């Protein structure tokens, strides 16, 4: 099943100024040869030059932040507006090569911090993850949500991306 990642977006950046959107973001770049995505078969026939491994812990609804945008996000996550698409800007060091640079990817997300306040039924969802690249950067997209009093406070990710060296 392919997800369309079409819910209201929550944007996160591994390089945000306050260093609060993603905890301990890391990116490793590894030179490879003969690397490809084998399932599903990649549409790209370009040779991969690098494997990039991105990891980090995404923060949702940080209580210490009082920007309206964040409060709304937190309310959305906490309330019955259950579904959101988290978009994590990964700061791909080869982003300037354009979206065609990505020849394959394999990613996952998982719950890292959850809580419930005062309701005996609640749901928290981290449903899927995939990498999408555009002209400026690579993004990890994930459909997430929580309802009733459940809160998804943190989500961990690992995105493995195969890339060409350039055009």
């Amino acid at each position, binding site marked *: 099943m392919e997800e369309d990642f079409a819910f209201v977006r929550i944007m996160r950046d591994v390089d945000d100024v306050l260093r609060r959107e993603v905890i301990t*973001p*890391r990116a490793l770049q590894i030179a490879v040869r003969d690397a490809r995505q084998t399932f599903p078969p990649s549409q790209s026939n370009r040779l991969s030059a690098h494997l*990039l491994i991105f990891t980090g812990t995404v923060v949702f609804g940080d209580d210490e932040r009082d920007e309206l945008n964040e409060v709304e996000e937190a309310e959305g996550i906490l309330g019955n507006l259950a579904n959101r698409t988290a978009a994590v800007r990964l700061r791909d060091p080869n982003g300037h090569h354009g979206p065609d640079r990505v020849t394959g990817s394999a990613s996952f997300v*998982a719950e*890292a911090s*959850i809580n419930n306040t005062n309701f005996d039924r609640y749901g928290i969802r981290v449903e899927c993850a995939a990498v999408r690249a555009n002209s400026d950067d690579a993004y990890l997209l994930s459909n997430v949500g929580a309802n009733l009093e459940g809160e998804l406070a943190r989500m*961990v990710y690992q995105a493995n991306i195969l890339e060409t060296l350039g055009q």
Partner: protein
Amino acid sequence: MADFENTYDVTNDRDVAFPRTLEIGITGGQQVFPPPTPSALTANNLLIFTGTLLVNLHGDSGNASRVLRGIVKLRLNRSLSKNETFLGSATVAALGSIHTDEEEVTFAVDDVETIVADDHELWLVAHMAIQGEAASLSRMAYQANVLVHDSRPELDSILVRPAGSGAAFSSSALVRSGDAWEYQINLSGPAPDGGMLILLSSDKPAEVPIAAATEVPRGTVSAVFSADRTSGSPTTAVITARDASPGRSTSRSATVNLFVLG
């Protein structure tokens, strides 16, 4: 002050379920975010550690609203030798197994990182939290990806020749049954302090025997060794040399063709 500081070890099967370590030789690697400290080194080894930590954290049984926060440390059972340099890491840890029958609960892996301790051991360190009188967080899944530069030389080749012939060493040699032969181990650079241990084997040990291991002395790039005398019928033996250094699996082969004078 942390409410708890727990230490675990991947070698203890009560601490980690299905721990695995992969050591992968790579042609180059670096940590690119956050931007690394400028270094002339590039990684030639990628270490991948996975497993499920049986963390077994419990909430405060006498205070439902108290959030316990602490540190969990997992020894990954991989120390870096003095020839190895830690160049970066990327680590994930997630909630694996949780349980509660309460309304007000918290389960958290707030932050995780892989570090090199003062004793050169690799450790996964996570900041975790739990709330709820009956809350339990029993398992945490992890993957640690670590880049290392290993300055030890590679095993370049094993070459052979009949003993005392003065012939050039080659990837194959013709040796008369009953005669001795010699082999040359070549490295990509000088062997480190303590020498470099090379494991040896023959697929025809009865006819073409060889010692189980040899050591290239410190500072030496190439060394010649004598093998035992051959015996028996004509055959072709494949002689294999393998780097016995931790984290290495490079092997090289040569052949000894045994013949009998008619």
